[in-house]
């Protein structure tokens, strides 16, 4: 892939992707560019609103209909559901790990195969997140393990 930065002075930043076909790599690039424009609106315990870069999110969970967002060093809440988080930022590595959790695959420190077909994910926040039996085959498939689903 060739990257050219053309400095022309004033005006709005314009990104043009020239490609033979819109393949997986181009789609990933598009997702990356869009994610740079997308921010996740969250608020902290003091009700202070913060626009968070989705790549900073380690994992999210719902407890009693409230969605909590964990970064490496802070805890926030968001108005988005886990389904919305997964669909908006799935290309950035957001993965549904259970009914009540979404994890950013890029932040997982290690995975561990567990009993009952489950997978445990160790996170940099010190948490251990259990990927349920229902979602574990999807994770295996996402990581390219053959015959997972």
């Amino acid at each position, binding site marked *: 892939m060739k990257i050219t930065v053309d400095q022309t002075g004033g005006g709005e930043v314009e990104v043009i992707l020239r490609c033979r076909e819109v393949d997986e790599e181009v789609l990933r690039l598009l997702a990356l560019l869009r994610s740079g424009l997308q921010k996740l609106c969250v608020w902290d*315990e003091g009700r202070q609103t913060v626009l968070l870069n989705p790549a900073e999110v380690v994992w999210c*969970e719902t*407890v009693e209909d409230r969605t*909590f967002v964990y970064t490496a060093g802070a*805890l926030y809440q968001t108005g988005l559901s886990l389904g919305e988080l997964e669909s908006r930022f799935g290309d950035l590595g957001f993965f549904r790990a259970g009914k009540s959790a979404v994890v950013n*695959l*890029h932040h*997982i420190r*290690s*995975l*561990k*195969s*567990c*009993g009952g077909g489950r*997978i*445990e994910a160790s996170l940099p926040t010190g*948490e*251990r997140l*259990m990927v349920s039996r229902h979602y574990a085959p999807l994770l*295996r498939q*996402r*990581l*390219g*393990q053959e015959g997972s689903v």
Partner: protein
Amino acid sequence: MNGFLRWYRWGLQMKYHMGIYTVGLIFCKGVVNALQGEYTVDSRTMLEMLVASLLLASAETALFPGGLDRPQPKGRTAIWVALGNLLYVGGSLVFGWFQGIPLWGALVLVLILEAGFFAMWFGINVAMQADTADLNRRLRKYQQE
């Protein structure tokens, strides 16, 4: 808030194992009862089995804070097996869970219990370790892409 969430997740983990052990015990009790021509299990016995399983599952979280599903120090594994035997064999003797079965039947039940512990050890130390290594290799590859 963090403390509550940690406690909530600990509860989820613990009760999962407690549930599996309780179901296993009640299944054995059901089979033994059926062989003796009785097709019910009384709720007091089920409650006793639940409490024994709760104690074992709670002890597990203290003995293996990182989880049972990983290679463990031999000493702690031995304590866990001994505690499992104490709770289940002891519970059977004290509460008469499997009353009326012949000696060979009791030996079969103890063998099933020990085989269950061995199967867990084998699964954790051989099959799961290989799967864990493969998962982590694929995770690194995904993260580097």
